[in-house]
């Protein structure tokens, strides 16, 4: 059967227009999320069967109010549409507008249309027309906008077939510009501009001058011309303002003829909900309550699947050991790769649940209210109201959280948010906290209801947030970073969240974690496995040397195996590393075994527990009921003769894990997001120094 080349379609639109719903409706499950080269913005591409002969490749560009970008996400829209050689340069653009905010949406349409690429306007949420008292003259609107206009209701799957038909016939669309920017602003200036770049649409040239840093498609001579135009910044800014005002005037005239709304029919859900949700008391009470519900559910709902995952990977590991012939390869599989993958998968439940809530809050429009409530408070700490989402998300995992900071438009506020987010208590810290708390905090109740152990955990969460805020405060006063703040946010209408959109967001964010952190965690797990199962000569001779020791004679066979494993670990490369850092960590109350765990924690913090399990040779014998906890509790510090994990050293460890930047995946993502090694190194050494000093003080004061 004859098949045509896929038509490339770019979806562009304001946030909250239902663009994502439309994308999901057009592509169904035929979509994949990738990354734009070099940056971590998610790129959503899907295919859509238009008709028997034609398919379309749909690219969902990030939501934007204008083609002039203020955030990194929005930059992608400009870059994709400017360069004809861009791999996603569309054959046809679909601008998605929502029926209620059509005026503002048409500004974007008007800009896009002037690029002279075939452009279709989709007016979405058309099911609201009657309820909102809106009348629209579609035929006249098409004429005025010089293109096709399609009414859809993406959530109710209406108008989608019509849209497919229009996309298929994109060749017949009018590509004249809508606004004639040359005449209304400064005719001479723009005629001159046009003559200098005769082959480009005028508006494209204008964007080259006002928005694009460096445009590769030009030759040297043309680049020089662009640079000379760029010089007069004042004038450019003035003309941009004039351009925007002119576009709105034109839109107003068009809408006067084609669009009518009877305000009396509009139900005022917004103002009623706003009265409560951003009330000076109730606003915060409700927000605090929602946070509590979220954290509570993360713990409650995630514990069952996490236990199952844990057991599953332990089972996989032990069956690999049994089934495969003994040797290096088996050891790599059962002790390196399987636990490595398990260490990634175990976090999926918590991350998915957290982002389920975040997605719901964003879809309903509530998140913008939180931004509004929190902005002033967060600004004292050098951040913006928009930093709340990254900070909350950081309690699951810093990687998607740092990526969520992309929405923050001011560079300084965004940078500070990125820098302090790793202080929030991420899920990888929990297993470490759990085991140490169980060791050093007695199982008592305070005031009859609160468990002391639970309160300690809560205190650690508060410590995480408090250190994020106070380091934000410090950075706010220390960092000299230029960059204006362009804080303008839309307060969208309240909506019932679409399950489909929520589902896709959760999948996307979880994927970002699995592929962002996963690769690194896995790689480091394998390196650690290598370092623990290899060593210099003393390691290869370990078995013989161990058998010659006098004290082993009375050991039972299984005890013999355990102690041999422990002895071998001591002689391995990682054992040597642990020993060599021992002098540095002794003042904190740790020995070389904890040193090994600290080093291996750089893969991901929770590796701490697994490493100690290996060191204290647990797990080989299921008959013996001593758990890792009991083994750790019994461990004696040879220097002091006291228990190794006593109250001072345990507290010192808790403090160390609360502050230290022990996550290579996060450092990698910070490098990518800030485009510099400076900031991740600042985090590594700044947080490391803080952790060291704080643990030292904790240990010294408590002993």
């Amino acid at each position: 059967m004859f098949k045509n080349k896929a038509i490339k379609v770019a979806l562009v639109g304001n946030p909250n227009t239902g663009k994502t719903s439309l994308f999901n409706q057009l592509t169904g499950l035929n979509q994949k999320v990738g990354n734009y080269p070099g940056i971590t913005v998610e790129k959503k591409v899907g295919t859509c069967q238009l008709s028997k002969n034609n398919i379309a490749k749909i690219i969902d560009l990030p939501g934007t109010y204008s083609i002039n970008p203020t955030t990194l996400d929005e930059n992608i829209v400009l870059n994709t549409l400017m360069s004809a050689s861009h791999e996603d340069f569309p054959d046809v653009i679909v601008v998605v507008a929502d029926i209620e905010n059509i005026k503002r949406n048409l500004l974007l349409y008007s800009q896009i249309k002037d690029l002279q690429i075939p452009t279709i306007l989709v007016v979405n949420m058309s099911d609201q027309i009657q309820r909102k008292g809106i009348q629209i003259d579609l035929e006249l609107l098409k004429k005025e906008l010089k293109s096709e206009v399609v009414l859809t209701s993406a959530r109710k799957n209406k108008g989608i077939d019509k849209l497919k038909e229009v996309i298929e016939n994109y060749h017949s669309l009018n590509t004249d510009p809508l606004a004639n920017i040359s005449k209304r602003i400064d005719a001479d200036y723009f005629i001159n501009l046009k003559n200098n770049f005769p082959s480009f649409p005028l508006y494209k040239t204008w964007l080259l001058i006002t928005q694009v840093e460096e445009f590769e498609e030009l030759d040297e001579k043309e680049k020089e011309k662009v640079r000379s135009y760029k010089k007069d910044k004042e004038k450019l800014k003035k003309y941009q303002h004039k351009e925007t005002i002119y576009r709105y005037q034109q839109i107003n005239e068009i809408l006067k003829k084609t669009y009518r709304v009877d305000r009396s029919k509009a139900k005022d859900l917004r103002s009623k909900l706003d009265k409560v949700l951003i009330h000076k008391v109730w606003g915060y009470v409700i927000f605090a309550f929602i946070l509590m519900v979220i954290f509570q559910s993360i713990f409650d709902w995630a514990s069952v699947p996490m236990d199952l995952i844990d057991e599953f990977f332990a089972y996989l590991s032990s069956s690999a050991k049994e089934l495969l012939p003994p040797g290096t390869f088996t050891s790599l599989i059962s002790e390196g790769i399987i636990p490595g993958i398990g260490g990634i998968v175990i976090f999926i439940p918590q991350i998915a649940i957290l982002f389920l809530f975040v997605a719901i809050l964003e879809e309903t429009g509530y998140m913008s209210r939180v931004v509004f409530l929190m902005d002033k408070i967060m600004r004292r700490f050098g951040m913006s109201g928009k930093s709340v989402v990254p900070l909350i998300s950081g309690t699951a995992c810093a990687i998607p959280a740092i990526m969520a900071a992309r929405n923050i438009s001011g560079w300084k506020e965004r940078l500070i948010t990125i820098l302090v987010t790793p202080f929030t208590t991420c899920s990888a810290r929990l297993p470490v906290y759990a085991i140490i708390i169980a060791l050093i905090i007695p199982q008592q109740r305070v005031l009859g209801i609160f468990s002391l152990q639970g309160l300690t955990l809560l205190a650690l969460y508060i410590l995480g947030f408090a250190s994020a805020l106070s380091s934000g405060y410090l950075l706010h006063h220390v960092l000299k970073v230029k960059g204006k703040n362009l804080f303008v946010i839309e307060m969208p209408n309240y909506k019932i969240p679409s399950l489909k959109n929520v589902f896709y967001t959760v999948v996307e964010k979880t994927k970002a974690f699995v592929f962002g952190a996963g690769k690194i965690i896995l790689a480091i797990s394998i390196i650690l496995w290598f370092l623990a199962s290899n060593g210099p000569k003393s390691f290869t001779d370990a078995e013989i040397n161990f058998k010659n020791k006098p004290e082993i004679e009375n050991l039972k066979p299984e005890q013999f195996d355990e102690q041999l494993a422990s002895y071998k670990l001591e002689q391995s490369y990682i054992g040597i590393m642990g020993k060599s850092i021992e002098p540095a960590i002794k003042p904190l109350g740790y020995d070389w075994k904890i040193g090994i765990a600290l080093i291996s924690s750089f893969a991901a913090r929770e590796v701490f527990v697994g490493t100690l399990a290996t060191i204290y040779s647990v797990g080989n014998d299921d008959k013996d009921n001593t758990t890792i906890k009991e083994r750790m509790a019994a461990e004696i510090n040879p220097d002091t003769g006291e228990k190794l994990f006593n109250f001072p050293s345990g507290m010192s460890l808790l403090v160390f894990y609360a502050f230290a930047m022990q996550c290579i995946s996060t450092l990698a993502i910070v490098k990518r997001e800030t485009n510099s090694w400076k900031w991740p190194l600042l985090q590594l050494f700044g947080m490391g120094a803080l952790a060291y000093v704080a643990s030292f003080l904790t240990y010294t004061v408590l002993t």
Partner: protein
Amino acid sequence: MSTSIANLKVGEQGVIKEISLENIPLSLLEMGCMPGENVELLQIAPLKDPLYIRVNGSHLAIRKEIADQILITKI
């Protein structure tokens, strides 16, 4: 009477007269906040900042420092 958005009381309206070009982001204009448009102050955040306004059909939150620079005639 001439004043700025920041001086409105909740529920009061005005018409935008002038926007200080230098310190106002283009994005604000693009969201519909421009001279000649009617603006209503809907709510003020608990700590007096930011401001929640309706202008030209858009519902926006802007910081006080920006609101200070949007001059209006009260109506």
